């Protein structure tokens, strides 16, 4: 048992810290802290900075131009980046689609798409969920019918995160409805400029235009855009989901969030004393910090096992459930800490105009973040689905 990082890992952490200190632009840091909303240009800018350093495609093998970091290195970067208030790396092309193409895509697909992901030329979004297929993803109904050299796609996808920025979408489509649900699904790459595609924004409860509906009407997709084999899409999708879950615990975000709450609690006054000295608030804060300390170690235990070559099992479901509970609890504490100043919701605070914030430092976005982050326990396989997975594996059989 040794709880500390190795000398090499510590050296790597120092290198990451130094890089973040010198290369993360202040405007981006301020926006991540909640003083504005990141634009597409902001996200592209951060990607370009990381790409130049060779740190963008952290999980890609070297043969594809990736950094081929170990799970521990990736963890260190994620933790340091969150602490430094760096933008999250947009995962759709880099860490969701790319591993699928690298494992199942054709040489032509790899050669064409992977460099365009690195350069930022392509922005991918994910066409998985449908109005009738959320937790029960395999029941998806968007159809792709073969017609000569094309598939003709009809249907509707939803909850397509940042689809408004995307020029490409990877989709799960039904290519056979006569077999078991999971066996009639294919994985298609679609150009968003193809006639018949319409993107409609969905405004979330905090006012953010983060997700979209994507409608397909007789959209013609060349057959060479099929990934792997027809009707094997579910296998690829499951492979992709294991990648989606690598940073599922969000330990770095939670640590950054906890620090922000502590900063606020030191300056917000209640009964003539800083809120940090209020016994009830201090107890709540301590409780979630204790949970987070254990979660950080749980996360590292699982990462170490993965580094040693063990495939993650129910552990990633456990990280998702507990990690999101902790993140949401921190959002709740931030909301409480802001007091009455959690209420103002000026549009300029989220749009990044030049007006001074309404309340004390850090209080502006807390309520919006609290409501927005209710999504954490819903998306990427809801916490109910994760608990079902844990129970099924450990108890066998029933739901």
């Amino acid at each position: 048992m040794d709880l500390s990082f190795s000398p090499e890992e510590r050296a790597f952490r120092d290198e990451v810290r130094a890089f973040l200190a010198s290369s993360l632009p202040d405007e981006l840091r301020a926006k991540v802290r909640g003083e504005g909303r990141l634009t597409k240009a902001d996200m592209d800018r951060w990607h370009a900075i990381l790409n130049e350093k060779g740190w963008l495609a952290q999980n890609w093998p070297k043969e594809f131009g990736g950094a081929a970091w170990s799970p521990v290195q990736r963890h260190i970067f994620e933790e340091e980046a969150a602490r430094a208030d760096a933008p999250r790396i947009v995962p759709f092309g880099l860490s969701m689609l790319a591993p699928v193409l690298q494992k199942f895509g054709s040489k032509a697909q790899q050669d064409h798409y992977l460099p365009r992901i690195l350069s930022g030329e392509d922005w991918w979004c994910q066409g998985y969920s449908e109005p009738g297929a959320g937790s029960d993803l395999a029941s998806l109904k968007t159809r792709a019918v073969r017609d000569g050299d094309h598939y003709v796609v009809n249907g509707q996808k939803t909850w397509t995160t940042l689809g408004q920025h995307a020029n490409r979408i990877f989709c799960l489509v039904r290519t056979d409805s006569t077999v078991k649900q999971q066996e009639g699904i294919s994985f298609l790459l679609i150009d968003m400029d193809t006639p018949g595609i319409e993107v409609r924004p969905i405004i979330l409860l905090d006012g953010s235009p983060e997700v979209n509906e994507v409608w397909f009407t007789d959209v013609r997709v060349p057959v060479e855009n099929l990934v792997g084999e027809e009707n094997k899409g579910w296998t690829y999708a499951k492979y992709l989901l294991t990648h989606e879950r690598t940073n599922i615990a969000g330990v770095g975000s939670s640590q950054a969030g906890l620090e922000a709450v502590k900063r606020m609690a030191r300056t917000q006054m209640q009964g003539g004393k800083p809120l940090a000295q209020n016994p009830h608030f201090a107890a709540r804060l301590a409780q979630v910090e204790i949970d987070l300390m254990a979660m950080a170690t749980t996360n590292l235990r699982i990462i170490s096992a993965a580094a040693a070559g063990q495939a993650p099992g129910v552990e990633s479901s456990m990280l998702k459930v507990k990690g999101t509970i902790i993140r949401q609890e921190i959002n709740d504490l931030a909301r409480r800490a802001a007091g009455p100043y959690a209420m103002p919701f000026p549009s300029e605070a989220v749009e990044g105009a030049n007006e001074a914030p309404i309340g004390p430092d850090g209080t502006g976005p807390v309520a919006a973040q609290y409501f927005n982050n209710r999504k954490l326990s819903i998306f990427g396989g809801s916490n109910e689905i994760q608990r079902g997975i844990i129970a099924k594996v450990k108890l066998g059989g029933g739901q």
Partner: protein
Amino acid sequence: MNFDLTEERRMLQDTLRRFLKDRYATATRNAILDSDAGFSADIWTDLADLGVIGALFAEDRGGFGGAGFDIAVVFEELGRAGVVEPFLETAILGGGLVAALGSDDQQALVADVIAGGLHLAFAHGEPNSRYDLNRVETTARVDGDGVVLTGAKAVVMNAEAAGWLIVSARESGDAGDEAGISLFLVPADATGLSLRGYPVISGGRAAEIKLDGVRLQASARLGAAGAGFDAICTAVARANVALAAEALGAMETATALTRDYLMTRKQFGRPIGSFQALQHRFADLLIELEQARSAVINAAGHLEAGAKERDRQIAAARNLIGRAGRLVAEEAIQMHGGIAMTQEYELAHIAKRIVMTDHRFGDTDWHLERFIDLSAA
């Protein structure tokens, strides 16, 4: 023991529920939320005509109610429909303070409020006061035959729409003293008064207020000099009953929407409400909802009691509603899934009303501490 509403209150409840069902559909409310004013002047006057404002005032002030259960009945219905019109600010807080303290001349404002022709705002909270009612740093300095107000007020709901603001200011003592706080009627167009308005996340608008040497006649004082604190506590006690009842109504709607969704949404070939994991959680919401209803009854039933027992019951209700409300709001969203994350779906607004109740006149923990203090003494 009798937990039935009186005939008059039942009629008020029916009328209000029917009106809001017809006139305050989700789409209407979402349009109101997006509007510049932040509330609907038409809905306001129609509800005034129905007597909804009058129900919040006693007969000797021109109303026909004003007791704890009148407030609870009205605000539970407003909460069920997610109403954002400023009944709390204009009628309970502003109107309540003028009715309690006003001279005969000042009482004329109450009649205007009841008729629906005047809005008020209660400018009490300050940048450093958080939820502490006694922490007033704004000063009132007697100057000749007038008074000069200087200071800042924070997150003042309905300030921009108000014709008059009821402003608290200190005439003596230190920032945390209960004695020495006076109340003043300040016209919206007073020189030296400036507002910075903004929308509030759960609907309506508020403002940061600067009082830069606002000069008033001594007759602008509401009640006796330096003796405003008890009246503030009474007005806030009534506001807390209203807020608790409003949250209760919103919790009823959240629970009803969740029930409908559990029965109709199908995944894995069956309604999601047929999964026991969700059934038990839904059952817990119903249990908490009944606890919340009882907490509101306790608070409303003690609103006319002595200040100490009144405040202890109210602290209990706000603490319980804070806990139960958060559970109901979060679980309702979670059991719905993605659809509840969208702004246009009714639950989004209802959940915000419930959760953001926790940011007015004390959050769950603040009321817990208050309950402990009032129980010990």
